[in-house]
């Protein structure tokens, strides 16, 4: 299996001289199964350079998995050029939006309203299929299997685990470890904490034996207290999580758009220091910062 990062920035594209090393495009991850099946996780602006690459490999058969439908994860979708070319086949997967009461088929319909984009979905000539997934139910793509898991974000967000011939990679999408909504002194605190612990234990169980975890590490632990409930994780929290469940490689992504490359590296170094991972490969855990163009083979 091969994993390639096309967009690693959170919230909004952040181009410019200060983000040149890690990249300014929003979330898009390409996964190739052993037999070459193409899986794409999220359609942030990073999907546009990926599309340019795919035009050299026509016809395109792609399975796109949306973690959720916030703008930074769908912004590049109408610019995914293979959608416009007859003979291509694109299958878009995602969760059921309980607030809208609709499945993933709404993703482009909402995005392509005529006032906001000149092309209608009907004018896209590739074969486009939608598949609304249920939590925990795996779908097979070639020799890979993809399992959606329910994580925590202001909108329903799926993390996806991909398994292929004994190797596995998991992408959180946007995820904030479940916060307790009560104060420790409140009557409901202990009960709520128990529910959270149970939920976390179920997730950890679903991630058993994981090789690579790609996790939302938007904030530092110091920044987090003023951003509780925003739906994002921290560098330190993700390191502790990956370490606890015995992941081999943690890739930190969804970099803050205001963080320059230098600031990102400083925050990363400090997090490694705080979590006792300053010297390489402590406890066998490899920790990386996601970077546009980075490729991992497993």
């Amino acid at each position, binding site marked *: 299996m091969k994993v390639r990062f096309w967009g690693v920035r959170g919230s909004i594209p952040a181009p410019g001289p200060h983000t040149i090393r890690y990249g300014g495009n929003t979330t898009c991850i390409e996964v190739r199964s052993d037999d070459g099946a193409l899986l794409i996780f999220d359609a942030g602006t990073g999907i546009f350079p990926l599309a340019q690459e795919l035009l050299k490999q026509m016809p395109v058969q792609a399975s796109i998995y949306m973690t959720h439908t916030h703008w930074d994860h769908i912004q590049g979708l109408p610019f995914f050029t293979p959608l416009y070319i007859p003979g291509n086949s694109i299958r878009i997967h995602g969760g059921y939006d*309980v607030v809208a009461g609709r499945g993933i088929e709404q993703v482009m319909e909402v995005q392509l309203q005529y006032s906001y984009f000149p092309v209608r979905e009907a004018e896209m000539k590739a074969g486009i299929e939608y598949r609304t997934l249920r939590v925990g139910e795996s779908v097979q793509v070639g020799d890979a299997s993809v399992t959606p898991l329910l994580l925590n974000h202001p*909108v329903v967000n799926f993390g996806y685990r991909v398994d292929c011939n004994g190797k596995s990679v998991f992408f959180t999408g946007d995820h904030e470890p479940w916060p307790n*909504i009560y104060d420790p002194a409140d009557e409901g605190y202990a009960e709520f904490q128990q529910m959270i612990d149970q939920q976390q234990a179920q997730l950890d169980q679903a991630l058993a034996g994981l090789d690579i975890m790609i996790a939302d590490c938007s904030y530092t632990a110091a920044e987090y207290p003023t951003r509780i409930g925003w739906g994002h994780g921290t560098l330190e929290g993700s390191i502790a999580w990956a370490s606890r469940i015995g992941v081999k490689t943690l890739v930190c992504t969804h970099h803050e758009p205001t963080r320059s490359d230098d600031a990102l590296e400083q925050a990363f170094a400090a997090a490694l220091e705080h979590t006792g991972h300053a010297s390489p490969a402590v406890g066998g855990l490899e920790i990386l910062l996601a970077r546009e163009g980075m490729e991992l083979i497993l």
Partner: protein
Amino acid sequence: MSALTPELERKLDTAVERMPAFPRSVQRILELTRNINCLPKEIVAVIEKDPVMTMKIFKVINSAYYSLPTKITSIGQSVVYLGINTIKNLALGFAAAGILPRMNAAGFDIQRYLLHSLVVAGVARQLAIQFADDEADPGDCYIAGLLHDFGKVVFVQFLSAEFHDALAYAKENSLPLHEAERIVIGVDHGVVGARLAKRWTFPAHLIDCIRDHHQPAAAASAMLDCVRTADQLVRFREIGDSGNPWRDTEAPAAAARFGDDPENLLARLAPGSLEKIVAEAMVFAQLASEQ
């Protein structure tokens, strides 16, 4: 217990979708959500006091899309699964459906009904904590108490004339309301409430409890004992109004567990617990000035 008419079956399909919630919760949700930093626990506290909003959240969370390992019976758990922002936006959507008017063509006082439901919920939980802690989950007893008479809201909304007649029939003939409902409407509120709960794949013990709370022959369970007994105690004390006043001829719902004297059982509740439950419920049901 009778079957539902095809007409009522049809109405039930969309019943709760379009059902407005209670005035206080709609008002509170609108107030709270105006502030982007509102406390999630305050939103939860509102939802879990409103039978309509609670019903709607459970409908969503237990839907097949989430195929959760266990059925969800608490708003707190729903928050863990769906996230507080999703719950908040769902609640805002529920609030947009408007408010249940206090009075209606059935002549059924919806706010006194809410007071009844809230106090039954609180007392059922208290009974579980004090007398059945190992056998029944207090949180489940609260929810079962809150939702046990949900069928009556459905009647108010969709069969108001028939429900009006059932209320009158019960009064004229000194019958329990559920018996009058069976005669006049053809089905009682327990069956209707349970039908909805089943349609939305609520957990079996909650469905059973809603369906059977007026079925003396139903298989006993600690949860059913707590809910039935709470219902009796609250009507005995004349707190709120479920349309079914206490009758001295009523047999105690769970004599083996709680004895046969309501006055005596009330005296055994933890000191001040009933007063606290009633005071909080009256504020929420907006009946503070009434009693």
